[in-house]
C-alpha cells in the first residue's frame, strides 16, 4: 500500500457514514481471512491433541503406519510429500521458465496468445482427470519406457535402482509437474514482460544475440519474481491430493529409489479419513494435516520473503 503524506492523512480519514460503512466492509473482509486461518490452526491443534499427547514429538520421525496396532509415524509421508514436490518443481521450473521466455520475448503474437491460453488451460483440468490419466497412461509408460531408459544409464545410482512398478515417486512428481507448470509459466511470463525494454535494447546495442540477452540479461533481472512463481507452484504441489494418490503407490515407506511406491501427507488423509473410526486414529490423521499446514506456512513465508526482497531492492 502506498503511504500518504502526513498532511493528507487527515483528509483521507473515513468521515461520512458511507465511508465508515465502506471501512467496516473492507476491514471486516480482511480480518475474516485472518480469523479463518487462526480458526483452522486452532481446530487442527484441538483435533490432533490426543495424538500429540499420546505419541509426542516422535510422531514426526517414526515411520510405522499401522492402524490395526494404533502405531503411527509421519516420516514416510513427510519424505514422500517433499520428494514428489521437489521432482515436480525441478521439472516444472525448467520447462515453465523456458516456455515463459519464449512466450514473452520470442514468440510472434499470433502464436503467443493461443499458446499462453493452452498452457493456462492445463490449470483448469480437474486433478482427478490428471490422476486417472496418470494411472492408465503415464504409469504404464514410466514402467515400460521412461523407467528402463533411466535405469539403463543411471541405474548405478540409488535414485534409479530397484524394481519399476510404474506408480511411485517419479510418476507422482511428473504428474505434479504438469499440474504446476501453468502457474510457473503464467507468472514468469508476466515478470519477464515487465522487465524494461531499455535493458534489452542496451544489451542488444552491446552486440549480444537475442538468446544471450534472454539468458544473461532478462532472466537474471527477473530471477526474483520467477523464484516467487516457483515457490507459489511448490505450494500447490505440496497440497495436491487426488492425482498424487492415484499414482504414488500409497506405501508408507522410505526408499532411496524414485521408482519405489511412496505416500504423501495429503494422500493418507484422503485415503483413510472416511473409514477411520478409533479416536486416536482420527487424531493421528488430523496431526498429519497439522504437519502439512506447517509445511505450507514455511513455503508461503519463503514466497513472502522473496517478494519483500524484490521491493527492498527496488527502493534502493
Amino acid at each position, binding site marked *: 500500500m502506498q503511504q500518504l503524506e502526513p498532511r493528507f492523512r487527515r483528509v483521507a480519514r473515513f468521515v461520512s457514514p458511507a465511508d465508515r460503512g465502506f471501512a467496516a466492509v473492507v476491514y471486516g473482509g480482511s480480518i475474516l481471512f485472518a480469523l479463518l486461518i487462526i480458526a483452522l490452526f486452532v481446530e487442527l491443534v484441538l483435533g490432533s491433541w490426543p495424538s500429540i499427547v499420546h505419541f509426542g514429538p516422535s510422531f514426526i520421525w517414526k515411520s*510405522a*503406519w*499401522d*492402524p*490395526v*496396532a494404533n502405531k503411527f509415524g509421519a516420516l514416510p509421508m513427510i519424505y514422500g510429500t517433499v520428494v514428489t514436490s521437489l521432482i515436480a518443481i525441478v521439472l516444472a521450473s525448467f520447462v515453465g521458465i523456458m516456455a515463459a521466455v519464449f512466450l514473452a520475448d520470442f514468440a510472434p503474437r499470433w502464436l503467443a496468445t493461443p499458446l499462453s491460453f493452452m498452457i493456462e488451460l492445463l490449470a483448469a483440468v480437474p486433478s482427478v482427470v490428471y490422476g486417472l490419466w496418470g*494411472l*492408465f497412461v503415464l*504409469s*504404464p509408460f514410466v*514402467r515400460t519406457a521412461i523407467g528402463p531408459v533411466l535405469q539403463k544409464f543411471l541405474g548405478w545410482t540409488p535414485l534409479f535402482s530397484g*524394481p519399476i*512398478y*510404474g*506408480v511411485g515417486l517419479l510418476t507422482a512428481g511428473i504428474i505434479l509437474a504438469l499440474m504446476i507448470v501453468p502457474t510457473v509459466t503464467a507468472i514468469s511470463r508476466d515478470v519477464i514482460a515487465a522487465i524494461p525494454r531499455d535493458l534489452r535494447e542496451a544489451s542488444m546495442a552491446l552486440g549480444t544475440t537475442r538468446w544471450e540477452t534472454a539468458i544473461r540479461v532478462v532472466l537474471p533481472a527477473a530471477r526474483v519474481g520467477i523464484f516467487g512463481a516457483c515457490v507459489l507452484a511448490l505450494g500447490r504441489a505440496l497440497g495436491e491430493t487426488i492425482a498424487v*494418490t*492415484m499414482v504414488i*503407490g*500409497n*506405501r*508408507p515407506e522410505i526408499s532411496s529409489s524414485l521408482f519405489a*511406491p511412496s*505416500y504423501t501427507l495429503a*494422500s493418507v488423509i*484422503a*485415503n*483413510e*479419513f*472416511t*473409514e*477411520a*473410526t*478409533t479416536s486416536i486414529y482420527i487424531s493421528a490423521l488430523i496431526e498429519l494435516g497439522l504437519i502439512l499446514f506447517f509445511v505450507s506456512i514455511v513455503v508461503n513465508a519463503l514466497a513472502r520473503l522473496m517478494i519483500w526482497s524484490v521491493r527492498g531492492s527496488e527502493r534502493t
Partner: protein
Amino acid sequence: MRRSFYRGLVTLALGVAMTLPAAAATQLTGAGSSFDYPFFSKAFYIYNQKRPDVTVNYQSIGSGGGIQQFTAKNVDFGASDVPMNAEELGRAKQAVLQIPVTLGGAAIAYNLPGVSATLRLSRQALADIYLGKIAKWNDPEIAKLNAGVKLPDTPIVVVHRSDGSGTSYIFTDFLSHVSPEWKSKVGTGKSVSWPAPSSVGAKGNEGVAGQVRSTPGAIGYVELAYVIENKMPAVTLQNKAGKWVACSPETVAAAAATKPNVSPTNFSIVDSAGANSYPVSGYSWVMIYKDQSDKTRGKILYDVLSWLVGPQGQSNAKSVDYVPLPVNVQNAASATLRQMQR
C-alpha cells in the same frame, strides 16, 4: 435494462418454485458405506416409484463417516461394512439396532500374460503371497496347485486398497482366519500395514483394477460387482471344505447361508464351511435407533427398511450385481427390525 433482467430472474424463480411438488413428502436421510451405494440408489429409487411420498437421500461418505453422522443424529440411519463395536455403541448413548442389508465378496483378480487357464490358489498360498513369502508366479507352492499350467518367472506385484474400505476388512479378516502368521503380524482392519515388500496401494476398486490390468504379474482383490462388470480374470479359491470355488453371487450367498444367526457381535462369514461357500465374503449393515423420537418418521423408516431387507427389496440386488440376503437372514433381519419402537 438491468431492472428488466432482475424481473425476469424473479419470474423464472417463481415459475421453477411452482413446478416443484408440495412439501408433504417425507425425506429420510442416511449416510455411510460407499459399498452399499449402488444397491441403495437402485432400491430406494424403486421404493420411491412405489410410494412417491417417501424419498430416501443416501450419502455415500464412507462407513466411518456414516457411524459419526449416525451417532451425532444427523441422519435417520447409518450404514457400515463392519457393524458398530461396543465402544462406538457406547458413544451413541441410546439403544441401536444393527441389521444386515446386503452381501459382498472380494474376487482375487490377476494379470499374467501368456496364461489363459484360470489360476487356482489355496488359502495358504494367497496368504503367503500377501505376506511376501511367495514372490514369484512359478513358486512351487503355486505350481503344484496348477498342474499343467506353464507359469512364468514373473515377480508378483501385490495390489491392495489404499483407502480404508469394507472390502479390505473382509479380505484381511479372511487372511487372519487362514494364516496365524497374518493374524499376529498384520491383523484385521479397513486399513492395515501391508507386509509384502512388493506391494502397491491403489485408491478404490477402479484403482486396484487399473493397477492390476496395467501391471504384468499383479494380483489384487476387487469387489465382486466390479469384477463381473469389467470381466476381469479372477482366481479360483480353495475353500474350507477343500472345494474349488470362483467368486460369484451364488457362492457368496452360499457362504452367508451357512450362518443364519449372524449378529452384530458375531458377523464374520469368511472361510465358512460348506462345499459351495466362497471364503472371502461379508455383510454390510444398517444402523437405526431402537427408540424413534418422531413416531411418524420412525414408522416410515421402519416401512422402508423392512421392505429393503424383505424379498421385494432384495430382488433389486441382482440387477446391480449385488448378492441378495439368503431367506433365513432376511427373516432374522426383519425380526430385529420389529424391535424398533415406532
